[in-house]
């Protein structure tokens, strides 16, 4: 399938230092869980898209992703995370997708930075130019898109080794700040929890986002008691659950690394 990038598949490769190749930092502001200061949730009924550019930015992004033009889908996710903290917080959601598309397509040589800048300048002079072409009827790309909407693109893979943990096991998350994409949020690093689910092996986003291979690992749902994560600030009985890859976890009592 497309989004996970068939071209990227192959034998697992070791994790190199992705910061040498990418401007990336995982401890960026997209990792929002537990922060204060954003105020009340603005819960308003709104249309799915607020402007026509949002509708097209959404659809364009996925059509490009399905063709593998971003590399693996995790690379597109990571591209949003590395747009810069200040811009991240002040950008509209689909603006983040647009920004990621611009950056990835230029980085990967699909578009030239100069041709993109020139096209933008031409449109700033005359916004009516370069209108989207009318549909010429169903085509192969549309069939591919329809098939992926229906069938998805599962990141589940055959497991190379048996799972290290079982449901019920107490675990501790590793405390680390890798320079790259990860799915272990800051608020749950170095925290103790318990395995409550096992989902087989899944592509490891930490390597896949950087073109370093799928390196599938067992994926577990881990339950963290609210008091373990937040101490006195926990607002009552409860827990937060996260889906975490095996290399994020140590057995409780194992030396923390």
């Amino acid at each position, binding site marked *: 399938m497309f989004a996970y990038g068939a071209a990227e598949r192959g034998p697992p490769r070791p994790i190199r230092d992705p910061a040498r190749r990418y401007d990336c930092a995982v401890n960026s502001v997209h990792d929002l869980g537990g922060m204060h200061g954003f105020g009340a949730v603005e819960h308003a009924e709104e249309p799915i898209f607020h402007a026509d550019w949002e509708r097209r930015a959404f659809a364009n992004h996925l059509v490009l992703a399905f063709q593998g033009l971003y590399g693996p889908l995790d690379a597109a996710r990571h591209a949003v995370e590395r747009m810069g903290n200040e811009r991240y*917080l002040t950008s509209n959601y689909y603006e983040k997708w647009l920004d990621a598309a611009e950056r990835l397509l230029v980085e990967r040589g699909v578009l030239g930075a100069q041709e993109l800048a020139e096209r933008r300048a031409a449109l700033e002079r005359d916004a009516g130019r*370069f209108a989207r072409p009318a549909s010429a009827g169903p085509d192969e790309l549309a069939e591919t898109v329809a098939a992926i909407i229906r069938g998805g693109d599962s990141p589940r893979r055959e497991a190379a080794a048996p799972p290290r943990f079982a449901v019920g096991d107490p675990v501790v998350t590793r405390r680390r700040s890798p320079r790259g994409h990860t799915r272990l949020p800051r608020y749950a690093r170095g925290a103790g929890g318990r395995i409550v689910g096992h989902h087989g092996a899944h592509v490891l986003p930490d390597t896949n986002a950087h073109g370093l291979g799928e390196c599938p690992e067992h994926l577990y749902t881990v339950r963290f008691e609210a008091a373990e994560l937040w101490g006195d600030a926990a607002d009552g*009985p409860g827990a937060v659950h996260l889906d975490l890859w095996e290399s994020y976890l140590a057995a409780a009592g194992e030396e923390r690394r």
Partner: protein
Amino acid sequence: MSHDHDHHGDAELEVRTRALESLLYEKGLLTAAAVDTLISAYEEDIGPLNGARVVARAWVDPEYRRRLLDDGSAAIAELGYGGLQGEHMVVVENTPAVHNVVCCTLCSCYPWPVLGLPPRWYKDPAYRSRIVIEPRSVLAEFGLALGEDVEVRVWDSSAEIRYLVLPERPAGSEALDEDALAALVTRDAMIGVSRPLAAALAP
């Protein structure tokens, strides 16, 4: 924090979108048919009505409810739903003692086949930052007051597994058929930030 109108206005974003897409159409990497297939799928076909039908079926069919809680993706596929951004779905059930709520603190993960695209507030920093640390306060702001003894389970999803909340069936809905029940099931009830509509509101 307000995101309604950001420092980049719609006019500038229209120009940026058009600049990018026009080059891609010229290179044959976008076609109007492909783009329109996606837009119509998520603007017209795939939305919370799918999830509402799943919930209503679980309310009337105990065997289905068991299958749904045991293997969400498979049971949801029985009703014809599945696919992109919902390849692996888990359904979590509310009870008088346990309330579930779904979020994605890192990005915007959401079960597209059953709920469609996420609402703006789900993707905004206020919800993503607060729902994990103070879920009761956030839910109270949504109008959902929970007893002190109710356990709040937050599911912070991160792409691979997508979560759907199976809300409690409203009191007084015993006489309603499956379609009438589905009409009570709101998107927000399946995210876990509200309860289903009252049975008296059934059409």
